[in-house]
């Protein structure tokens, strides 16, 4: 198999948690991520699922190079990220892009949408000014935001779903080889969600773009991912090929997640009601 673009080799992340009970209490270390190995190959979509607090976002931040692992190492095209400098470090930062869940908070409120998307084109790709404008329009168009209507707008004038699409356009601007995305489509309306998923899939096929999706949405996982990793308490508790794993989940959390996902079938209501009434702890 090809060299993975991005790889975590038994990484752990320890956070100190202070005990509130005593002043001189020994600092306890919490293992937010505990010895996880992941590799992402060109054109591959890996989904990372787990409940809040399972460490999935922390793993994402380590893969992005935003948080150095306490143990283990992150590798970019086979090279340890910790040792990268100069052009190699710049290449890592250009090729590994992120789409945050709350895109609103990651956009400069004083920059127009056009400026936000233009920045990576100027800095990472060093495109000439004339080319930047054209490329911004293409990118906005790709994510379904009419350039003429949105280029000059400010983030606060956009809806959550529209801002999310700006975040995706901005990540794509750097021509990345892998995108780490935290719930990239959960804020989008259903009718737009399909368009964005199709766009991501097209880029994967055309450019061998790879993704790590951090998500709860099993519909998204099924629609796009090749492999799923299930995390709980900082550890990898289950992993495998999407269809197989979602057809017969082994781990309790995976089973719970499948059962909890709402389906458009009102016939389930009666069953849920019975469960809700029976499930009341005495």
């Amino acid at each position, binding site marked *: 198999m090809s060299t993975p673009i991005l790889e975590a080799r038994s990484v752990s992340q320890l956070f100190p948690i202070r005990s509130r009970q005593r002043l001189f209490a020994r600092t306890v270390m919490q293992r937010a991520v505990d010895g996880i190995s992941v590799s992402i190959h060109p054109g591959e979509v890996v989904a990372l699922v787990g409940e809040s607090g399972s460490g999935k976002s922390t793993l994402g931040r380590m893969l992005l190079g935003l948080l150095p692992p306490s143990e283990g190492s992150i590798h970019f095209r086979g090279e340890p990220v910790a040792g990268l400098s100069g052009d190699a470090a710049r290449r890592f930062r250009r090729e590994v892009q992120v789409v945050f869940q709350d895109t609103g908070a990651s956009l400069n409120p004083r920059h127009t949408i056009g400026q936000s998307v233009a920045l990576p084109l100027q800095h990472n790709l060093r495109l000439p000014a004339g080319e930047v404008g054209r490329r911004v329009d293409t990118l906005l168009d790709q994510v*379904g935001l009419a350039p003429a209507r949105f280029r000059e707008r400010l983030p606060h004038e956009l809806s959550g779903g529209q801002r999310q699409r700006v975040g995706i356009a901005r990540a794509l601007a750097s021509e990345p080889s892998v995108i780490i995305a935290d719930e990239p489509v959960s804020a989008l309306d259903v009718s737009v969600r399909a368009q964005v998923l199709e766009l991501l899939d097209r880029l994967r096929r055309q450019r061998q773009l790879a993704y790590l999706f951090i998500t709860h949405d099993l519909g998204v996982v099924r*629609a796009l991912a090749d492999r799923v990793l299930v995390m709980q308490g900082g550890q990898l508790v289950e992993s495998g090929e999407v269809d197989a794993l979602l057809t017969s989940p082994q781990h309790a959390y995976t089973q719970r997640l499948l059962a*909890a996902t*709402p389906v458009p*079938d009102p016939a389930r209501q009666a069953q849920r009601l019975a469960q809700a009434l029976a499930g*009341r*702890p005495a």
Partner: protein
Amino acid sequence: MLEVRDLSVEIAAGREKLRVVEGVSFSVGRGEAVGLVGESGSGKSMSAFAILNLFPSPHARIAGGDIWLEGRNLRGLSAREWRGVRGAQIGMVFQDPSSYLDPLIPVGRQVAETLRAHGRNEGAEARVLELLDLMELPSPAEVARKYPHELSGGMRQRILIAAALALRPALLIADEPTTALDVTVQAGILDLLTRLRVELDLGILLITHDLGVVAETCQQVHVMYAGTIVEQNEVGALFRQPRHPYSQGLLGSMLGPDSRAGNLFSIPGSVPGARDMPAGCRFHPRCPIFQPGLCDTGEPALVDRTGGGSDRCRRSGEFDNAWRRTA
């Protein structure tokens, strides 16, 4: 119990007046959960704010229609009278539980505040514990002493539901109550709402963009598009046989077990803004069965159909799925 008739909401933008909700009617009975579904910009949240007369912007106001709650018309109440209705007769919960809690006050006291604000000081503490227990929070006395940051998102939402129900309102308005939560936590909250509906005979108006949530929680559904209700029906019927092309498209865009990138359906175009509302049927520019002359003149009325439900499509019933043109 709640009867909304011909409600319209206007936002003043400079000299312009934008109609963001137009002629919306629906009702919620005791022990009934009614879903108001739509995408962003459909006017679903604005309709909810109107019922509470609690708009996020001073430029928004009710422009027409009536809101009847247990036989009393809420239109024309004074600010003081409104305060008596909100909380006491209508409880409300919103999307992001953290932003509605004070980080510096223990949550138990925040639930008690609802009681105190309405002059129910006596027995407030006991009532708070009773409420937290009703919300299925483990060891209520302990939870009551905690600060919001010590609780998970799901627990915080339970605290807010407790505060919303403190005064035993007959109606709960829940605006995207689970959107910010994990799927497993969401399921817990939805089960809780269902249980409260049955046990307390509570009417629930659930505002959401998630059809899956509606299918599992509501009995009646109203689908909103561009400020109007385009289809209304009992939940089973609406999911089995949506009649309006927009409802059909919305259901078709949901990701099912067989949805794979490459075959995903989406409705082309985007929701029109209040400034550029198309003439005739508001959906016609995006509609696959748009018929010139029929669909682009005069706003279609919401028509009751035989077999139950109503919709606003002039070609209603011609196609099982207008997008696939199967008659």
